[in-house]
């Protein structure tokens, strides 16, 4: 590795590139979601601003930027300001440990296609996303209004409940890989079975598919997406925790929500679908980035599809699903995985 300032400079540039990419992805995900949901509902959707409505996000951004910056009466001033920032910053931070390309691509010994690789890899994402929860709670509480408070309470109860199931599911993946670090988890999945079938974790029958299913349900609940979008169910709560927010502060919450969705998709891809693994990555390492983006995009599409298809569950159903189905199944899966790894140690990396 080069001198410290070189490492710092490269890290700063990497972070900047990722932030800009995520912001762009956010802008066009709002467009994509509106267009796709319209398609699913046999409508047309925003198609006036630019070709296919492609400039719609720009128009939305300008509109939000020029909106009045107001403060609800009786709001807690400091927390009202901090909350959206907290939500947005943590959403971006979680992406820091995700590898979006092979580690061989280096500049002065610094891997270019991942921002940071801490020893506790996956746990870092859990830690940061749990801090992001404070953005939602504080936003709902500080607005001094009923509906946001209810939305915040629902959201915190939901995220704590599902974090348990997701955490337990992640443990079985960690067992399969024998490491917490995401690049190594991906590296293991680049191997093949019988010479052609990729050894992605989703194909580790029977534990892989079950773990993936549990993770998918948990991630949908944790990102507050339909059918688990109770913290912001319009019919009951107006808009949920950000009802009293407007302009750029509302936009910050919105950014956080979509970036969290991208992160959840990226984690699913990394843990279960081989991350940047794909044909010809051995010859052209940079191709891995394309594979990674394609897989993440597929997941984002899936989440939008899900939203357009499924009705919202009731709150008690949500809690029942989390505690009575997800957690026991995750524990069962963990037990089976442990047994398998004990019997065939070659499967686990440890």
């Amino acid at each position, binding site marked *: 590795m080069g001198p410290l300032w070189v490492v710092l400079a490269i890290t700063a540039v990497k972070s900047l590139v990722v932030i800009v990419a995520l912001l762009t992805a956010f802008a066009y995900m709002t467009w994509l979601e509106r267009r796709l949901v319209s398609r699913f509902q046999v409508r047309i959707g925003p198609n006036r601003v630019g070709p296919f409505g492609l400039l719609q996000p720009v128009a939305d951004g300008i509109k939000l930027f020029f909106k009045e910056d107001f403060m609800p009466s009786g709001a807690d001033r400091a*927390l009202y300001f901090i909350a959206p920032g907290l939500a947005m910053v943590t959403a971006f931070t979680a992406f820091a440990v995700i590898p979006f390309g092979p580690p061989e691509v280096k500049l002065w010994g610094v891997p270019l296609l991942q921002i940071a690789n801490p*020893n*506790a890899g996956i746990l870092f994402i859990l*830690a940061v996303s749990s*801090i992001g929860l404070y953005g939602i*709670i*504080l936003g709902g*509480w500080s607005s001094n209004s009923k509906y946001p408070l209810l939305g915040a309470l629902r959201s915190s109860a939901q995220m704590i409940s599902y*974090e348990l199931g997701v955490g337990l599911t992640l443990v079985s993946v960690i067992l399969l890989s024998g490491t917490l670090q995401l690049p190594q988890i991906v590296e293991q999945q680049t191997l093949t079975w019988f010479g052609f079938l990729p050894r992605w974790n989703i194909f580790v029958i029977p534990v892989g598919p079950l773990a993936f299913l549990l993770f998918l349900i948990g991630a949908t609940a944790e990102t507050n997406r339909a059918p688990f979008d109770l913290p912001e169910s319009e019919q009951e709560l107006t808009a949920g925790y950000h009802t009293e927010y407007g302009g750029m502060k509302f936009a910050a919450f919105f950014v956080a929500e979509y970036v969290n969705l991208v992160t959840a998709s990226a984690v699913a891809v990394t843990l279960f679908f081989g991350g940047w693994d794909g044909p010809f990555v051995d010859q052209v390492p940079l191709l891995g980035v394309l594979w990674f983006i394609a897989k993440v995009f597929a997941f984002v599409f899936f989440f939008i599809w899900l939203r357009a298809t499924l009705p919202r569950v009731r709150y008690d159903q949500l809690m029942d699903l989390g505690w009575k189905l997800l957690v026991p199944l995750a524990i069962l899966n963990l037990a089976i995985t442990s047994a398998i790894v004990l019997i065939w140690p070659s499967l686990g990396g440890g």
Partner: protein
Amino acid sequence: MITRSKPVHSAIAFLGTLVSLAGLFLLLYAQFVAILQIVIYAGAILVLFLFVIMLLHARSGEGSVEKLRLQRPLAIVLSLALLAGVSFLFLQAGLSEAPTPAAGMGTAEEVGKTLFDHFILPFEVASVLLLAGILGAVVLSKKESWS
């Protein structure tokens, strides 16, 4: 944390304390413990604190601060004494570079090995204690239906 009059502000200050503590663990090369500190304390325990505070009335606990006489001058004197003590220690010991840790120290693997090897008895005792706590909570909340 203890200077705020609103409970929610105190809780957020506590969040700051927890994150700073995680930073101290990081300085000691204990990455795994630092992350766990945030996942468990900030991610679960403090959220439940906030949950309870918010479920109570939004302004509960405010304005109930009892002021001692001479509190302010006493506080100044005591904090100056603390500062003097800490700086005395610093000046005496001098600043030196942190020792480089043994390879692999503070990683998840090392923490796990130590926990299940050296400290297996305290670990199991703690788990029994937690189980007792869970059972106690269940029994307490089920009381009415039994009597």
